[in-house]
């Protein structure tokens, strides 16, 4: 939320930025050093590219569906690297513990086999994910098995699809866009593209903020802060398939920000 009364300071990839909103609602982003940047607005968020964009902002076709409002959940600062934040979003095994009584519960903690494949345009997709969820959304009145699809199309943008309980052939979609502030700090910008079920935007926001606040202390206590990409740096099991695929994809595209590359000696933790 931008306050017209003051300049909003933020940072992208270590570069300080100042964001101002004028009385007419125009938003201007400037580098403190006044170097050029590219700026755009989409899905209720302000997007910035420090260089020359080689492709457009992540397309979200569902954002054009007229009966699907976009709810901007709010920005949450987290002292963790962007890739750690994305990996946590993809993680099924923590739902029954970190999000106990919401997105999972002991003893329904088994992660059933699921499928992970590369996306043709780059990135990964995890399908056939299933989890027992006591309180899958604010509107849920009882626990049920929830089917999920996860997608990572950009290194720091991910989303999940879950079947809408009323319109069974359509999905509710939750996006997590991560702003890389420094290599070890981030701002998470979750977006909801859910079919209206009577829940107010405020209640949707409150629910997602509760969920993210449960993840935050975990994320801030991961060591090392940068995501290690070498096989064997951490010890995944079959349930961690999407994490393995995500890390390998980041390696393959040569991402360097917020990660410890496979050929780099791990910094003393």
């Amino acid at each position: 939320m931008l306050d017209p009364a003051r300049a909003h300071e933020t940072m992208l990839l270590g570069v300080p930025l100042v964001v101002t909103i004028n009385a007419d609602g125009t938003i201007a982003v400037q580098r403190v050093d006044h170097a050029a940047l590219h700026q755009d607005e989409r899905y209720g968020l302000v997007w910035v590219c420090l260089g020359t964009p080689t492709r457009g902002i992540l397309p979200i076709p569902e954002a054009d569906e007229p009966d699907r409002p976009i709810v901007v959940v709010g920005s949450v600062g987290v002292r963790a690297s962007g890739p750690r934040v994305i990996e946590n979003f993809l993680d099924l095994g923590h739902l029954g513990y970190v999000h106990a009584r919401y997105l999972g519960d002991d003893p329904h903690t088994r992660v059933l086999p699921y499928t992970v494949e590369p996306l043709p345009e780059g990135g990964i997709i995890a399908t056939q994910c299933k989890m027992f969820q006591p309180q899958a959304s604010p509107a849920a009145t009882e626990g049920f098995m929830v089917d999920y699809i996860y997608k990572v199309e950009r290194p720091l943008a991910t989303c999940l699809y879950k079947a809408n309980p009323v319109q069974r052939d359509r999905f509710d979609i939750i996006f997590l866009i991560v702003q890389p502030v420094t290599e070890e700090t981030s701002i998470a910008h979750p977006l909801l593209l859910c079919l209206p079920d009577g829940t107010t935007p405020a209640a949707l926001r409150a629910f997602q903020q509760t969920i993210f606040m449960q993840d935050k202390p975990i994320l801030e206590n991961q060591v090392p802060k940068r995501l290690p990409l070498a096989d064997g740096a951490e010890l995944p099991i079959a349930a961690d398939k999407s994490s393995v695929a995500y890390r390998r994809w980041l390696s393959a595209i040569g991402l360097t920000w917020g990660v410890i590359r496979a050929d780099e000696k791990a910094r003393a933790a």
Partner: protein
Amino acid sequence: MNGLQAGVWYAIAAEHDLPKDHVYRTMLGGHELAAWRSTDGGVHVWEDRCPHRGVRFSLGEVVGDELRCQYHAWRFGKTGACTFIPAQPDLKVPRTIHAAVWPVALSAGLVWSGIEPIGAPPALPPGAVLRAIPIARPAASVAHALVKEPLAGLALVLQPLDETATIVRGIALDDDLVRADHALLALRRRLEQAA
């Protein structure tokens, strides 16, 4: 490195820092450590990091004789070996999934660890065990000050946290913990203000 010498025992906690079910978080020479007590009274000192996804063990919970990571509730037994993975409850956990275990000795009411420590921890005289006093100065500076002006009636040892900070631990020979506290807080003020 970081003032930490191999072969030496360092006091990294007092036994009274480790009540039942608590995971005590500390540092030694830049290494993050988690110390906890199993039901048999044994004390375990591990690298403060779950090998699965790197979450600090000190966020976790002691469940009986096991330490449970807060992220995915993987359980680790007294040897450091992972015993149970709830995401795959039928999995026979591979032996490679293991906490990094540090040496541990209990002596004089203190918990000692170090890198390949030799022999037994230093003998300290009987008395009351002090609370940990952190000082934002390197261990060498604190040691130097204590040699120059020894504090009467206290047997002290130093825990180098990292390059910049130290914890003073030890024994008050006359059991007067209040007097010991005053003496150490005065030392801390002196050293930190001089810095």
